[in-house]
């Protein structure tokens, strides 16, 4: 179960394996899972994860980082789960179907599921749980995710009908979001009472959460440990030493630079999952000098993506092509030429741009792990290509509210989204709340909406290709790398599933003692 690639070639096979689709991958993975011993029940599982704060709440409308997400999927379930191939599979929703217009979806729910408090799970609970994030008074982080829902109602026992303002063939992916956990109608969202694999015993924000197995859990082959303790460990060194000293069974977000410490140790295993998360340097396309597309292209050719991948991520990721769609996505535009470091093209576009304002990149370490290093490398590489790039280092504190999306050129991180539509709609549509490049293109917006509701697969693929091409050619995003998610576990546990989307969030119900 040692999953760390010995070199890049393994990673490539994993990637291509993900690309070839469900059938082939399933065939390859099946023997391995049969060879594994039957998951044993029992034991006390200790998880140490980051992203915790004393300000955390169990209310899914507030989930903003790993810790609450990992706890959320202990007490709760979503309607849909995304599997190892980033495909939508059934969780609390048994099946779903869109009508011809793509605007009306009928969701059929699982029967005989009970909440921790004994109440049966019904369609009313779904309406109530989703409405928690909707409406004028909602302050949910997931509010914009559900803004296209026009109507949400119980259409029959165990059946919910969702009516959308515009057609959307990807609605099931939206419903897989970790904010959209189901809780009982009329109940308190922050109570942590759901249908999930583990029942909350105690929740100390920023310290630890203790849960015990839900005896009535409906999902087959999951939730093995008797009790789970999720320890808040924001410090990477603390997580690593806790794993090394055997006091925890699982840790998340490992810096590739520390992997050698874990690797050599007896029994420890590393799970390296390619993901849709990516690092960006984004330019506002309506502010000088970044409003000049040739200037933007000059900057895009002035960055050595391979070097940033190798040095900042130690190779644990993939080179980006200025398009926020990961290469394993079914709609990834693989035929766009890979942009690489090219001083000639930098000079060509600089001349054409004829801009005499230097570029100034505002960056803080909080933008993404290694952001300052990456910005300084970018500066050196650009200088070598004859482009002056100033790097203005700013404090972490207040970065998201005062620098990002306020300064015309800054750094950011996106965890990616389950589908191209969600990704592009959330950050590249003219009206998008996170349109940090101020990219406004009517043709793009129209095509994006059309692609969302397109039922013909071939035409849809072409549309997403065209959308990616527009961003590639004219967008304000420099996207040097996609990062992998790296997790590690002790030799005592197994069963981790490498889902590229929402990686590691359902770890509690997956791990078992061998």
């Amino acid at each position, binding site marked *: 179960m040692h999953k760390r690639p010995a070199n890049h070639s393994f990673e490539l096979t994993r990637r291509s394996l993900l690309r070839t689709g469900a059938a082939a991958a399933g065939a390859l993975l099946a023997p391995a899972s049969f060879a594994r011993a039957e998951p044993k029940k029992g034991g006390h599982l200790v998880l*140490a994860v980051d992203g915790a*704060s*004393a*300000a*955390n*709440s169990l209310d899914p409308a*507030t989930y*903003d980082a790993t810790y609450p997400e990992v706890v959320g999927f202990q007490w709760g379930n979503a309607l849909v789960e995304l599997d190892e191939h980033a495909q939508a599979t059934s969780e609390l929703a048994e099946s779903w179907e869109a009508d011809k217009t793509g605007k009306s979806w009928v969701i059929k729910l699982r029967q005989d599921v009970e909440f921790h408090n004994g109440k049966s799970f019904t369609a009313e609970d779904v309406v109530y749980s989703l409405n928690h994030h909707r409406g*004028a*008074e*909602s*302050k*949910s*982080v997931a*509010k*914009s995710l559900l803004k296209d829902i026009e109507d949400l109602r119980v259409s029959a026992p165990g059946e919910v009908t969702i009516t959308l303002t515009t057609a959307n063939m990807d609605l099931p992916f939206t419903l897989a979001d970790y904010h959209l956990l189901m809780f009982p109608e009329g109940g308190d969202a*922050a109570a942590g009472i759901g249908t999930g694999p583990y029942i909350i015993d105690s929740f*100390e*924000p*920023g*310290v*630890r959460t203790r849960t015990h197995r839900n005896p009535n859990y409906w999902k087959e082959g999951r939730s093995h440990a008797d009790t789970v303790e999720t*320890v*808040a*460990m*924001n*410090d990477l*060194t*603390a997580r690593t*030493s*806790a794993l*090394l*000293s*055997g*006091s*925890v069974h699982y840790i998340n977000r490992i810096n590739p630079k520390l992997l050698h410490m874990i690797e050599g140790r007896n029994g420890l295993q590393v799970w390296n999952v390619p993901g849709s998360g990516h690092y960006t340097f984004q330019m506002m396309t309506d502010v000088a000098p970044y409003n000049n597309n040739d200037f933007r292209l000059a900057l895009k050719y002035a960055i050595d993506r391979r070097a940033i991948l190798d040095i900042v991520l130690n190779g644990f990721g993939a080179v980006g092509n200025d398009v926020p769609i990961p290469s394993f996505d079914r709609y990834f535009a693989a035929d766009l030429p890979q942009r690489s470091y090219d001083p000639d093209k930098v000079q060509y576009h600089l001349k054409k741009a004829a801009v005499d304002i230097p570029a100034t990149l505002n960056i803080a370490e909080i933008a993404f792990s290694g952001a300052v290093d990456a910005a300084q490398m970018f500066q050196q590489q650009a200088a070598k290509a004859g482009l002056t790039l100033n790097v203005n280092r700013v404090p972490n*504190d*207040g970065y*998201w*509210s*005062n620098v*990002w999306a306020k300064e015309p050129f800054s750094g*950011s*991180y996106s965890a990616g989204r389950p589908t191209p539509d969600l990704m592009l709609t959330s950050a590249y549509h003219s009206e998008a*709340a*996170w349109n940090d490049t101020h990219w406004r293109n009517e043709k793009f917006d129209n095509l994006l909406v059309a692609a969302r509701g397109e039922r013909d697969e071939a035409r849809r693929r072409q549309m997403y290709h065209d959308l990616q091409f527009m961003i590639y050619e004219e967008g304000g995003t420099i996207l040097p790398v996609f990062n992998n998610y790296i997790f590690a576990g002790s030799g005592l546990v197994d069963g981790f599933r490498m889902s590229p989307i929402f990686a590691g969030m359902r770890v509690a119900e997956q791990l078992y003692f061998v």
Partner: protein
Amino acid sequence: MSMFLRITAQRIAFGIMMLLMTSVIIFAGIEILPGDVAQAMLGQSATPDTVAQLRLELGLDRPAIVRFGEWLTNAIQGDFGRSYTNKLDIASEIAHRLKNTLLLAAGAALISIPLALFLGLLGVLYSDGIVDRVTSILVVGGISVPEFFMGYILIFVFAVGWQWFPSNAAVYDGMPISDRLYQMALPIATLVLATLGHMQRMTRAAILDLMSAPFIETARLKGLNTANIIIHHALPNAVAPIINVVMLNIGYLIVGVVLVEVVFTYPGIGQYFVDHVTMRDAPVIQACGLVFATVYIMLNLIADLVSAYSNPRIRHPR
């Protein structure tokens, strides 16, 4: 004795004024900081719409002076309110965290203070001898290394290497005290090393300073041995500077150990405070600030009273 009562009353009144000023300064500080709790809570995923909604719900649309007045009125009545971010009751959260912090501080102080005094006296007894030099190098080494780094070194040796103690201090309510001490062993050791040096150096310096005083000469001429002189004649006169540095170190142990808490994931008040500063959670920052200020003011009061009491000229006024 009435003099002590007067000093105490004066100091307490002064302390209350200081607390009031501190809370004004903290509140102003939160207002000056860029960004507010609504932006911080929503982080990268903030939209103008959700930020406005959140501000409205938290009452942040009202003027700062109104919010401060409201907070002060409630705080005087002992109601610290609920956290903006997770809606938990601040008083009970702080009580819980403060208990952990005080236990850690007490554990460290109980080892550190007697050890520092002992090593300080040893340093005087064998001043400039090999024992003095070795202890000096060790304790100064201890305070010269940043405490989080010292924590990592201890983890590397005792948790990862020999696996004697856990690297994360997993304490919870209702834990047997022996288990708790075992969990707290490495953070306590780190804090002992971080505070030992200051107190040892001060003890040694204060007493050495006195050793050349005429009354010590007299004691020597009386034929007393050095250990006796140090303990019965020098030490009582060196109490004032020593107690001051001891109190400062206790203050540090209570309010300044957030880095040690992070390294050992110890659920103390420092981490709680820092998390909420990041979130601009004003009521929590105010309450913690008040607790920290109270701790410092009380410790200083104790230090003043003890040094006054230790001075015979004040104890027996003519």
